[in-house]
C-alpha cells in the first residue's frame, strides 16, 4: 500500500534527526566551558560533592564512554535527577507534559480557526477592507513579543476588566483536578461530567491560549492568503468555474484543498515557534508545564532538567514534523504515488 510505504519512508528519514538531537544534547553538557560536574552538582556543592558527582555520572571517563552511558540511560528513559526536587527528570516531565500540550493545542486551534478563514476571505476579496486587515494583522502579529502580548492581555482582561481570573495556573484553588485520564483538564472534566471544573479550567486556559494563538496567527494567515491567491488564479480553477460549479465547491473543495498544502508545511515552522513561545507564556501565566519546569531549573542552576527538557522538546518536534509530512501525503496523492 502506498500509504504504508510513505509512512515507513518518512519514519526512516526522521531517524538521523533523532540521532543528531541526541548527540547535540549530549554535547551541550559535555562541551561546556569548565567542569561539567559542577553543573550537575549544583552551585552549593563542596569540592567533595562535586567529585562524587563526577564519579557517579562517569564524568571522569573518556568521552565515548560517557556518550555510550548517555544513550543507554536514554534508552531506559533515564534523564537524570533534578537537584531542586530530587525527583527523576523523566517523571516530572511526564507529569507536566499534558499541561503544556493542552495549552499549545488550544492556542493552535484558536489560531487556525481565525487565521485560515481570514486568509481565505482575504484571498477571495483582494484589496478589500478584510484583505488589508489580514495583512496588518500578519505584520503586527509577527512583531509582537509573545510575553508582551500575554502581559497586555492580563492587564486588560484581568486587571482592568476583571473578566479573566488571576494568572495563577491551570485551576483555581477551589477546584479539584479532575480524575486523570488524558491529563487534559478540559477533556478529563468532560469525561467526569464535571461542567463546573470544565468551565473553571477553560477560564484559566483562555488568556494564555489566546496569547499563543495571537502569536501563531500571523504566519498561518499570511501563508493561507498567499497560497489561496496563487491557487485561485490557476488553470484548474478556471475550468471549475467554467463548469458552473458552486462558489463553495470552487473555493473550498477545489481551491482550498490545494492551497492547504503549503499551509501544512508552514505548520512545521509554526510548531517550532510555538514550542519556544510556550516557555515564555508559561512563565507569564505561571503555568505548570514543562517550559516553566525548565525555566525554574535554570534559575536554580539545576542542569539535568534543562537537558531533559531540550531533548524532549526536540524529539517532540521531530515527531510533529513527521506527522505533518504524513498528513501532507494523505492530502496530496502525488506524494503518495511517487513512493
Amino acid at each position: 500500500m502506498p500509504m504504508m510505504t510513505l509512512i515507513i519512508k518518512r519514519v526512516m528519514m526522521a531517524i538521523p534527526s533523532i540521532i543528531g538531537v541526541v548527540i547535540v544534547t549530549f554535547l551541550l553538557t559535555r562541551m561546556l566551558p569548565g567542569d561539567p560536574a559542577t553543573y550537575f552538582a549544583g552551585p552549593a556543592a563542596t569540592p567533595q560533592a562535586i567529585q562524587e558527582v563526577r564519579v557517579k555520572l562517569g564524568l571522569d571517563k573518556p568521552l565515548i564512554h560517557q556518550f555510550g552511558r548517555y544513550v543507554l540511560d536514554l534508552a531506559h528513559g533515564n534523564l537524570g535527577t533534578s537537584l531542586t526536587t530530587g525527583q527523576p527528570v523523566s517523571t516530572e516531565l511526564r507529569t507536566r507534559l499534558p499541561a503544556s500540550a493542552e495549552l499549545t493545542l488550544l492556542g493552535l486551534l484558536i489560531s487556525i480557526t481565525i487565521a485560515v478563514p481570514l486568509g481565505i476571505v482575504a484571498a477571495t476579496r483582494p484589496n478589500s477592507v478584510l484583505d488589508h486587515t489580514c495583512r496588518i494583522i500578519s505584520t503586527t502579529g509577527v512583531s509582537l513579543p509573545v510575553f508582551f502580548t500575554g502581559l497586555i492581555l492580563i492587564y486588560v482582561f484581568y486587571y482592568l476588566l476583571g473578566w479573566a481570573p488571576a494568572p495563577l495556573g491551570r485551576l483555581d484553588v477551589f477546584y479539584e483536578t479532575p480524575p486523570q485520564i488524558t491529563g487534559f483538564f478540559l477533556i478529563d472534566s468532560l469525561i467526569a461530567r464535571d461542567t463546573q471544573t470544565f468551565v473553571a479550567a477553560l477560564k484559566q486556559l483562555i488568556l494564555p491560549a489566546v496569547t499563543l494563538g495571537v502569536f501563531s496567527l500571523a504566519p498561518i494567515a499570511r501563508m493561507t492568503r498567499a497560497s489561496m491567491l496563487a491557487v485561485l488564479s490557476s488553470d484548474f480553477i478556471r475550468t471549475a468555474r467554467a463548469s458552473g460549479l458552486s462558489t463553495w465547491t470552487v473555493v473550498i473543495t477545489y481551491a482550498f484543498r490545494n492551497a492547504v498544502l503549503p499551509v501544512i508545511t508552514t505548520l512545521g515552522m509554526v510548531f517550532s515557534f510555538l514550542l519556544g513561545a510556550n516557555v515564555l507564556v508559561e512563565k507569564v501565566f505561571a503555568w505548570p508545564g514543562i517550559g516553566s519546569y525548565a525555566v525554574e531549573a535554570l534559575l536554580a542552576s539545576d542542569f539535568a532538567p534543562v537537558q531533559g527538557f531540550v531533548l524532549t522538546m526536540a524529539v517532540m518536534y521531530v515527531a510533529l514534523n513527521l506527522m505533518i509530512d504524513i498528513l501532507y501525503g494523505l492530502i496530496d496523492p502525488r506524494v503518495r504515488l511517487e513512493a
Partner: protein
Amino acid sequence: MTTVPALRVERLSVEFRTRSGIVRALDNVSFSVRKGETIALVGESGSGKSVTAYAVMGILDPAGRVTNGQAMYGEIDLLAASPTHLAAIRGREISMIFQNPRTALNPIRSVGRQIADVLIRHGEVPARGALPQAIEMLRAVGITDPARRASAYPFELSGGMCQRVMIAIALAARPSLLIADEPTTGLDVTTQAVIMDLIAELGSELGMATVFITHDLALASQRATRIVVMHAGHVVENAPTTALFAQPRHPYTAELIAATPDSATDLDDLAAIPGSLPDLRRPDLPLCRYAERCPRKTERCAQPLPQTAIDAEHIVACWNPIPVQAPLKRAVGAS
C-alpha cells in the same frame, strides 16, 4: 441546421486595467453561432479570441471589464445575467474546454470525481448515481478501462487522455454550445486528429454548436464551416470556410492564408505577416488596428470601421477590401 442562433455576440468590448495602462482588448466584436453549427475564431496570439470566450462565459480575470455589448444566449444576455443564473448556465447549457489539459484539471482529485462533481451540480443524476455515470462518460470519450481510470489522478494520465476527461466534464450535462479554446495545442498530431474527431462526433450526437478558438487556420478550415477572423481585438472578416479561402477580402485574412502551410507548400514559399500587433494600451490607437501593417491602406481607413456585407454570409470590416479575382489556386478546406 436551423438558422436560429445559439449564441449571438454583439458589439462586445472588453478592457483590462493594468499597471501600465488600460488595455482595450476587445472592440465591438460581433459574431453568431447557429444551433448545431461549428465555427472557428481564428487569429494570432493576442488577437482577443480567448478573451472573447472568457467574457461570454463570465470568467474574465478580475482586472477585466466588459464595457459594452451583449452576448445573447436565447433570450438571456450572458453579460448582464446574475452570477447565480450564469453559474447555472455554465457547464450545463454552455461549456468550455481549455488548452493544457493536464493543468486544467484538479491535480488532487480523481478524474471520475471531477466529472461527477459536474453531474451532481447540474442535477443530472442523484449523488449516488454520479460516479457510475461518470464512468459511462469516460467510456463515451473513448477511454479504455473507464472503471479503473475513473479513480486515477490527472498526473497519471497522458495529455490526450486528460483532454478526453475535459471533454467528458464539458459534455456531461449535454450542453447546446461548446467553446473549445485551443483544445489540441500541446498534443501530438495523431492525438490532435483523434480529439477533433471526438469533439465533432459527440457534437453532432448532441446537436451541439461548437466554437473552436485557434491560431491554426488549417485546423479551422478542416473542422469549421464558418470562420471568424480576429485581429487585435477586432473581427476583421466573417465568412463560410470555402468562401473565405476562395476569396479572402480582408488583407489580413489573405496574409494569414498565405502564411499557413499545407501539404503542397514549399517552406520557402511561406510568407510571414509583416509587422506585429499594435500596443493595445496606446491612447492613440487607430480606428483600424491593422492599418499600420496593411499594404492596402488608404485615407479612408481613418474612418470608423465599416461592416461591409459582401453577401448574406460574408462580412468584412475594411474600407479597401481585396477586389474579387480569379479563385485562388489553393483551395484548402472542407465542404
